[in-house]
């Protein structure tokens, strides 16, 4: 079986006034249909640029240096804008961090949701349904995201709804085209912890019920662990470790993954002393030579400065890119 999403040796440069940002440095990610992948990393690691590249909404001036993104046997980087329109929001859709920013404050939810339904019909060359039918479809979409009083919500304006409710509506919009792949960029970061738990549960249900494939991006390891079967850990534009979530979280092999997990205080109590990763994230205009993590790595040796580590397999579904990975 071929993967639904296959990112191969993807390199992306972004020219800026100060120089060229080498923002993605050879990304390899594979994801099967119905699977869930969490991409975790700190700010500036390139996770959002990667997610946006999958949807063809990356920075306009970004230059692909090598590699490709293949989705459902289509090479996305070669698509024309007209072809993109049949994929973006239809086969691949996306939800974002701040649900308020992405809703028009002047229009009702019903109007905005109905616009999306109409757009999908037009994009697929189908006749636009009558108003009653459109409303029925909107109600159906809201039910799918477990909103009970659909009639009230359809008549509401965004400011009349809570953050959790707004995120549900964005998810409903994202589902309108019956996508195969949903990209969720920090979907719970702006929400309170109790609401966050509800949204994560909803996404989990959608994966189970609709067989949705999800790529979730977050800096929050907890949120990633709650949803994703597989995890990719990113650092400074590279995937340092990737595989089954359980394996990566309980047996991390890359020094950065270890550091990241050790830096997290545990809600269950102090089972381990907190550890900080020394130093700060590198400047991607002049990234460190060899392994990009070496200046902050406790295990770094000469080879780490000279040679970029190969990604190698160390388990059934567990790869790591490190010269001195833990056993």
């Amino acid at each position, binding site marked *: 079986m071929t993967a639904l999403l296959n990112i191969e040796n993807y390199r992306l440069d972004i020219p800026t006034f100060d120089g060229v940002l080498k923002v993605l440095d050879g990304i390899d990610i594979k994801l099967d249909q119905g699977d869930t992948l969490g991409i975790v990393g*700190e*700010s500036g690691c390139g996770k959002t640029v990667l997610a946006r590249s999958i949807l063809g909404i990356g920075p306009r001036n970004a230059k692909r240096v090598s590699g490709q993104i293949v989705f459902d046997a289509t090479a996305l980087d070669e698509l024309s804008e007209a072809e993109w329109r049949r994929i973006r929001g239809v086969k691949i859709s996306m939800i974002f961090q701040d649900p308020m920013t992405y809703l028009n404050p002047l229009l009702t939810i019903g109007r905005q949701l109905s616009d999306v339904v109409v757009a999908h019909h037009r994009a697929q060359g189908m006749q636009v349904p009558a108003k009653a039918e459109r409303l029925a479809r909107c109600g159906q979409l809201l039910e799918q995201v477990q909103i009970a009083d659909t009639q009230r919500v359809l008549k509401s304006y965004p400011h009349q709804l809570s953050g959790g409710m707004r995120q549900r509506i964005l998810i409903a919009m994202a589902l309108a085209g019956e996508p195969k792949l949903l990209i969720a960029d920090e979907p719970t970061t702006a929400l*309170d*912890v*109790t609401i*966050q*738990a509800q949204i*994560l549960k909803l996404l989990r249900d959608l994966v189970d019920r609709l067989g949705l494939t999800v790529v979730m991006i977050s*800096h929050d*390891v*907890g*949120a990633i*662990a*709650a949803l994703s079967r597989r995890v990719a850990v990113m650092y400074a534009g590279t995937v340092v470790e990737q595989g089954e*979530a*359980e394996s990566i*979280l*309980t*047996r*991390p092999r890359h020094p950065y993954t270890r*550091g*990241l*997990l*050790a*830096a*997290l*205080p*545990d*809600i*269950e*109590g*102090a*089972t*381990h002393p*907190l*550890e*900080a*990763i020394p130093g*700060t*994230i590198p400047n991607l205009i002049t990234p460190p030579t060899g392994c990009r993590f070496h200046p902050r790595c406790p295990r770094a040796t000469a080879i780490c400065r000279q040679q970029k580590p190969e990604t190698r397999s160390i388990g059934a579904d567990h790869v790591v890119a490190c010269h001195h990975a833990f056993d």
Partner: protein
Amino acid sequence: MSSLATMPSIEAAAGAKPLLSARHLTKVFHTGGQEFRAVDDVSLSVGHGKVLGIVGESGSGKSTVARMVMRLIEPTSGTVMFDGDDLTAKTGEALRRMRRNMQIVFQNPHSALNPRDTIGDAIAEPFLVQTRVRGSELDRKVEELLDIVSLPKTFKYRYPHELSGGQKQRVCIARAVALEPRLLVLDEPTSALDVSVQAQIIMFLQDLRARLNLTYLFISHNLAVVRHLCDDVVVMNKGAVVESGPTEAVFKSPRNAYTRQLIESVPRIPRPAS
């Protein structure tokens, strides 16, 4: 002290006279002719050298409590006692003198520093406002403070935009401890930072407390951080305290339904066996 009997259990646990105690704090905001009780009859106290955490979701009133304690906003009713002095009764010069004993660090270090002032200027400001320290002595103080927060002395010539988020937060902490306050109010000091930087700041705060004999009032929505850092905790919901007590007790056996829900909502991360 007959009122001791009526105080929440957390005060009894603190034993000796607390450094900070707030009693029956209430804040009513008026918006569009409507009353909104942001904080409703909140009492709490922090013992000398202790760390009290206030947790709650957005809108719970936790930051409003912090600001009332600092007298950055005036409580509608209630009192704040600092080391036996009634802070709410003070005005003018007396209040200004009290303020050097209590300092606040805000959530977003990027907006807490004036972009047109150097780091040196930012750290020197409390001395200019509160003391007669000037000239080479002031220079020496600034360098000492940079040293305390583990930043190089040369940083005093830099501007905020040249620093990372974690470095800026250290500068804000340096400025807050400049006048050797006794109480530090930390309002979500790590929420804008990445986890590896958050760990640096938390460890640094723990170390700083021991070195400078500080007392912390720590406001956060991050329960894991609160559990890690605080001796006692106050849980707020919709402006009121729903539960308070020693951190371990509250997290291990929460008695209030909302506290339980809050703790259960935090996704658990599978941990390495070791």
